[in-house]
């Protein structure tokens, strides 16, 4: 690693990614959420690019590009369309209120910090901090999936989780297959979005859910 500045910048980017995750948790409207997600992807792209520069690994630029084009532009637009086409109403139904969710998020970030900083200092500090942030992003993404009812916001949750993964992957110095993985994940996300569109999942995953089929099969007692 070269000097302190690189460290700080990577740190800054990763940290801001966490911050944006919090912003996502904070949102109450779908469109806003989508925009924030675009921002999330943008920050990710930046941090990936920076990592590419720091590690001198040109292939990471591809990942960054994917993040930029696909996640920051295409997906939000498509989802936007879907919302319009399916006439999904714009409020985000939450399971727990925004306040508690934020608190839980805090807890998760703290948890991931503790877990990661137990790592013996021998390891590359840049990687370590990065990992801590990545883990918190992942957990926050999961939290989002768990605490939001709308299908779209859950998808967004999943995508930010995946952003966390990419962040971790790129943070790992010289990790092979990163590009492939990010591609694979983009495919996965595409599948999900298509699924939402195909299955006409208006409100939440719950509407197409095993409940229906179990009532149908009469297994419920």
């Amino acid at each position: 690693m070269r000097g302190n500045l690189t460290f700080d910048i990577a740190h800054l980017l990763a940290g801001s990614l966490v911050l944006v995750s919090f912003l996502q948790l904070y949102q109450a409207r779908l469109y806003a959420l989508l925009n924030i997600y675009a921002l999330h992807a943008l920050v990710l792209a930046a941090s990936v690019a920076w990592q590419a520069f720091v590690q001198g690994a040109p292939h990471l630029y591809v990942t960054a590009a994917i993040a930029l084009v696909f996640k920051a532009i295409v997906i939000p637009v498509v989802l936007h369309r879907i919302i319009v086409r399916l006439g999904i109403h714009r409020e985000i139904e939450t399971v727990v209120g925004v306040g508690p969710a934020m608190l839980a998020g805090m807890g998760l970030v703290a948890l991931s910090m503790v877990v990661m900083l137990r790592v013996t200092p021998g390891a590359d500090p840049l990687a370590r901090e990065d990992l801590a942030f990545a883990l918190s992003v992942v957990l926050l993404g999961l939290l989002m999936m768990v605490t939001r009812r709308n299908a779209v916001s859950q998808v967004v949750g999943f995508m930010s989780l995946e952003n966390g993964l990419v962040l971790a992957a790129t943070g790992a110095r010289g990790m092979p297959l990163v590009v492939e993985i990010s591609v694979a994940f983009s495919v996965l996300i595409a599948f999900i979005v298509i699924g939402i569109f195909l299955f006409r999942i208006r409100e939440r995953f719950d509407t197409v859910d095993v409940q229906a089929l179990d009532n149908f099969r009469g297994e419920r007692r």
Partner: protein
Amino acid sequence: MNFDALAGVLLIPAVAAAALAALPGYRISARLNVLAALLTFATAVSLFVVQPASGPYLLVDDLNKVFIVLTTFVGFTTTIFSASYIGHEIEAGRLTPSFVRFYHAMYQVLMFAMNLALVANNIGLMWVAIELATLTTVLMVGIYRTHEALEAAWKYFILGSVGIGLALFGTILVYMAAQPVIGEGLNAMVWTVLVTKAAQFDPALLDVAFVFLLLGYGTKVGLAPLHAWLPDAHAEGPTPISAVLSGLLLNVALYALLRFKMLLALNPSALAPGPLMVTLGLISCLFAAFMLYRRRDIKRMFAYSSIEHMGIIVFAFGMGGALANFAGLLHMTMHSLTKSAIFYAVGHISQVKGTQKIADMGGLTVSNPVLGWGLVLGVAAIAGLPPLGIFMSEFLVVSSTFAREPWLATVLVIGILVGLGGLFLRLNAIAFGEPRGPAAPAQASYVPMFAHLAIVATAGVYLPPALVTGFENVARLLG
């Protein structure tokens, strides 16, 4: 990489998949499917004769040889079953030829993916393979395009993707742990290199990694509380896929877990993965055992029984030690064979009766004696009654555990007993009493089912020494 058996195990399914995707007409493609599976199996067996050297991407050792042969064998028998099953489905008009073509191609892709996951020498590659296997099964679960099938597929897809995500994170962490020791680049993801250096890895990182891997791959193994996708995927997919899911895919995920367990076991200061696995195993076993009692859908019931047995297997590996590991391997093998046999029977039964509802079948031993008694035998086997194979493994697990950890063994025994009760409660309704529902003779191929049951029955009283030595080596490998 010159062409050897190892490449064969991968190439044959890949080529077959391409061919099947191109071929119209299900009869010929079904035959081709069988042929390809047979070839794969043959090549897999040849691994025992000449063990090819393992490169940076692929490897063969005692551990995965067992898995590969098991996978290819069940894969092969399942194709035979699937031939007659799909034939009936087409006549019944539940599947259109185009879907059947897709199905066959996907089947081979699935085989390819699972074999790849097994022979992968690279944790990243393994991850990719398992993700591929998951996605293919998702597509096949949804193949009937009924509301329930899509439901199940969607559920499987979402939960599976999260699992994949967690597993990836774990994989990255393992790389992070290895990278300072081994250095950047590919080597830090290669098993054969990792195991040599595992002792110097950062234990804390390994711990976190294992948590994520346990949950990520555990989702695929179907451990409670990560099991949610499993029963529905089994119940709604075509029965051959249920057989493959229960018989193979769970094993493949388990294989991944075992690999990482070995890695942790090699590192003295990392946390022992045993307790975690034991806990999850017991939870799954007990939970699934109780879930059996309220089942109305026959396939879903056996899906839960798969969860129960995966719990027992994970428990055994978690206990560790030569005896328990041996028992775990044996149990896994026996479970794959038995459970797939059961699903063969169930597939034909549900085709005969035209339903999967237990309430609508009954007196099967009267209306369709062969199927009925086959099912009874299978259930007896899966419930761990002698002289069938699972009894031996359960005997070893319980008796070896009881001397070390009496309470754990007691809990496990309770789980087994409750499971037995649940299974036979339903079996009585299915196989005995006044026959109900249509009793048309099934045009079924009984060969795969009874072949499996015969193997299981023999294994219950006699294990060939070669197999034993093989298992013992693996058990030693697992520590």
